């Protein structure tokens, strides 16, 4: 299991579009993906649960991956957490 903490930079936080891309990407990896914010931990493969984190710009978010291909998952998904999406 590996994990890393990121600061979200997308101006409107993590809403419909960024969440969709994150969850779709997470779904392509066999490992377990969890996202944590403020003591709450959710399944990174569920857009609904991701939305309930209410991630805003500048929020600190920890990504935790566990299982096969965890290295690639961490780098790709970490990239999405800090990506600025075109609205």
């Amino acid at each position, binding site marked *: 299991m590996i994990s890393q903490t990121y600061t979200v930079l997308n101006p409107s*936080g993590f809403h419909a579009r960024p969440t969709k891309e994150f969850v779709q990407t997470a779904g392509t990896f066999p490992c377990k993906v969890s996202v944590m914010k403020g003591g709450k931990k959710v399944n990174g493969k569920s857009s609904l649960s991701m939305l*309930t984190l209410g991630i805003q710009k500048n929020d600190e978010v920890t990504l935790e991956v566990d299982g096969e291909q965890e290295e690639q998952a961490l780098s790709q998904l970490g990239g999405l957490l800090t990506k600025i999406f075109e609205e």
Partner: protein
Amino acid sequence: MDKITTYRLSGIAASPGFAIGKAYRLQQEPYVPAEGKAADIQNELERFRRAVDLARQELEKIRSMTEARMGAAKAEIFEAHLMLLEDPDLIDAIIDKIENEGANAEFALYEVSSGFIEALSSMDNELLRERAADVRDVSGRIMSGLRGVPYASVSSIHEPCVLVAEDLTPSDTAQLNLDYVLGFVTEIGSRTSHSAIMARSLEVPAIVGAGQEAGRIETGTPVILDALEGTVIVDPTAEELSMYQARKAEYDERRRELRKLLDEPTLSQDGHRVELAANIGSVEDLQKVLENGAEGIGLLRTEFLYMGRSSLPGEEEQFQVYKHVLERMNGKPVVIRTLDIGGDKELPYMKLPEESNPFLGLRAVRLCLSKPDLFRTQLRALFRASVYGNLKIMFPMIAVREELLEAKRLLQEEKEKLIREGTQVSDSIEVGIMIEIPAAALAADQLVKEVDFFSIGTNDLIQYTMAADRMNENVSYLYQPCHPSILRLIRMVIQAAEKEGKWVGMCGEMAGDENAVPILLGMGLHEFSMSAGSILPTRALIKRLSRREWADYSEQVLAMSSNDSIVQFVKQKTRSDLT
């Protein structure tokens, strides 16, 4: 043989026209199942999977139809819905509840989806709260599949129908597919409620406030909407059907006749010229303005720039929108009203304190003056756009002269700053205020010295003069545009402006009201700004009226004692004008 099930309902004719078709009842009360156990767990899982599959098929169908008709952007919402059907935390949690707790599918679905709906609805972010509606929508669709009943939502309409609902929310109205929705009837609402205003801007026949009886109209029942009279005929007889088909044809023909007035100036019978402009609340409304022969925009509400998002719009974004509107209007006057938020319109991301009387609270120009940075951003964007057309700037809800002077001071400062920065700014921008508070109407003779024009906002002027909340049905009888109190205030405003050689417009509902237009013409109103759809009928009406005659009549009506007697008088006189 005639059926005997026919009955009539009456409501408020909110947007004119006729609609004849089958009712489609929008189910807004979610189905709440009783807690139940599965008789056979395998069978229950199978039922649930079948319902999810059915929901997926329906959604895919709607998505591809929406994409073909309205483009990929509008279809995106259904992508999000389809994703929910795949969501592990939603679907697996339901399956788990059935498998391990022995719950039946309905109850498991209800329990799990309600948890998410509650979690999302309580977020302090509007965008996330809207996602709760998506979960509600999708779980409602699966629930319908489980129960074997058709799922009702605005977005799932794909055959011609007359929509029946308790009320329509802004997002419902945004999703209305006018290829299929022939008209709508709601149980609650008034002439100035959101759904009514939207209906007029979309030009779809609508009756609002038809009462709870309307909510009992079953999907599939034939109905006729006479949105000129405000009558809904449920399950009409064959005679009624053919009579209304003829009326509808006649109405459609008259509308074609009106098209001929499209490019004509608005002249009274005796050659007095006035200007007919349109009120708009979004960039999408521009097309309707141009199609309906407006001579300008009398009111551009800027709230749309600020609503349905999570942070304030920046200067550049606002500039682009204002520039676009000014360019599209090609030199015709465009009155842009500075932010009029508060009252019934909120901006959750500004986290303004709740007020017990929001209509009498920190709203419109009051809010802008208390948050000068927000106001300055808008003023800068307006100035930068001013070189692309004929811009006029208007401040809403001015109560006292000091507010106007402060707003003008900020305006002047931003203008000078821009000029110093080397930005081009138009030199001929007129600055005006809305007259919508009785205090401003009564002091119009003093305020006029500080402005280039007035625009009378009758919806609020009536609300504040009558002390009657415009959203409250119990006092809706006090919405009396032709009451002598209102007419006297309007005359004071027009006379005050005339003395100083300034112009007066009106941008409330009253400006397009056929019972008020003759009086306003007689009083000397210069500009009438209304929903785009009312422009041509008003132009046709004014062409039949004599300004001179109505100048006398409008003096006469001021001596009358009620709204009804004045309306009666206008009706009688305009009818005799016709003969």
